[in-house]
């Protein structure tokens, strides 16, 4: 029987779309050629974070976090959710001014946050190096293990999961690598960085990120700690960057990021970037070198030219919706993305005004 919806990609975004579309009573088929949550979803930090780079970004992340609260209440222990909060750390007075700006933004938008002076910062995170200017804590941010969240969403949605490789996705049909054609009412391209491989013309390019995870050191850090230089580095549209970004997994493991490399298509560890990333982290956490690293790995995140995700109908392919291009914000933004796609499909008012994320901005007929 022809499915109402055909989703390509069972990462966190495709899985959230499957869950929301199933709630509409639609028959959903998800096609994934690897493990559920095994692509960029497994190579993200699983940081659920409110961002304030723009009103649109704030709306997307804040709406997502509200939805995540409902999800994690129902998800199994294996999702390892922890409301550890985000600590934005300021190295100097310029970054402290940015912390204050963020604090004001949060206050104006009803998000809890708390400024820390250097003494409070050192008490909050004793392993941070001395001499920092202070920081800002957002206590309602959290972390989770996203592959398990994606698996739960697929299971709970009752969507059908097909293990197959899609060679091409066009309009209302998918052509599998073996030539099989699957027709559907609508399609959703949620294939992450591979979205343009199956539907040429989607303006998404891979951005490689690398991660290192350590053995368990409970209490070594308590918050997801991110340097305030992060935003200016991350949003540089091209080139390479690293930023101090570390996370205390619920089990005590320390996850160390982050790096970005544009246009790299392979999964090998890039030793130069890995080293830059680790040295940046060690500047902030001088005791980090002694911690035992268990694993280094990489992922390819889907980046767009303007840094905003692509969520909504894709005018080039009538019948197709896009849910990709989230780059480093895919885990956070997955829930609102799924809801938005369902809102558009059901033709109901969207959860928030997400015009800024409509793919039509990138479509030039």
């Amino acid at each position, binding site marked *: 029987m022809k499915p109402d919806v055909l989703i390509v990609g069972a990462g966190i975004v495709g899985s959230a779309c499957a869950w929301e579309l199933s709630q509409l009573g639609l028959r959903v088929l998800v096609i994934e050629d690897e493990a559920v949550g095994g692509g960029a979803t497994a190579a993200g930090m699983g940081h659920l974070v409110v961002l304030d780079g723009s009103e649109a970004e704030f709306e997307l992340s804040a709406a997502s976090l509200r939805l995540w609260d409902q999800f994690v209440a129902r998800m199994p222990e294996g999702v390892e959710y922890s409301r550890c909060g985000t600590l934005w750390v300021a190295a100097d007075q310029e970054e402290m001014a940015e912390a204050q700006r963020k604090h004001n933004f949060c206050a104006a938008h009803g998000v809890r946050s708390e400024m820390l002076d250097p003494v409070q910062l050192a008490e909050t995170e004793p392993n941070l190096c001395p001499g920092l200017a202070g920081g800002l804590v957002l206590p309602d941010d959290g972390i989770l293990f996203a592959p398990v969240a994606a698996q739960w969403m697929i299971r709970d949605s009752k969507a059908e999961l097909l293990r197959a490789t899609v060679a091409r996705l066009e309009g209302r049909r998918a052509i599998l690598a073996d030539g099989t054609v699957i027709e559907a009412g609508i399609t959703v391209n949620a294939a992450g960085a591979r979205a343009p491989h199956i539907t040429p013309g989607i303006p998404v390019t891979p951005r490689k990120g690398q991660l290192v995870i350590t*053995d*368990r*050191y409970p209490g070594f850090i308590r918050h997801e700690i991110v340097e305030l230089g992060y935003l200016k580095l991350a949003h540089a549209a091209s080139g390479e960057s690293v930023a101090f970004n570390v996370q205390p997994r619920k089990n005590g493991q320390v996850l160390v990021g982050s790096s970005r490399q544009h246009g790299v298509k392979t999964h090998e560890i890039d030793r130069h970037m890995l080293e830059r990333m680790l040295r940046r982290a060690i500047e902030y956490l001088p005791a980090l070198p*002694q911690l035992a690293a268990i694993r280094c790995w990489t992922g390819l995140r889907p980046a767009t030219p303007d840094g905003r995700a692509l969520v909504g109908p894709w005018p080039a392919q009538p019948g197709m919706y896009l849910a990709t291009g989230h780059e480093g914000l895919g885990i956070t933004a997955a829930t609102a993305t799924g809801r938005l796609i369902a809102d558009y499909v059901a033709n109901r008012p969207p959860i928030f005004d997400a015009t800024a994320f409509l793919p039509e901005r990138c479509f030039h007929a």
Partner: protein
Amino acid sequence: MPSTITIFVNSKPVPATPETTVAAALLNAGITTFRHSPRHEPRSPLCGMGICMECRVTIDGVPGLRSCQTLCREGMQVQLEVEPA
């Protein structure tokens, strides 16, 4: 006869020899719980050859070292997460 040295396990002296691995010295001192698993089950060396990682302890401040792969040194400080019985 190998000369006797002293290592310290959670600050308590334990006799050893320079030819003895830290794992063997702990076992000889009657210490059977080297660490606890995530569900807090007691664990001790399994493979004896640096593979299973069950014997890892903190040595001279460095955490996560395999005691079965480390020879005792005079004055070495070994820290277990639990006080030895």
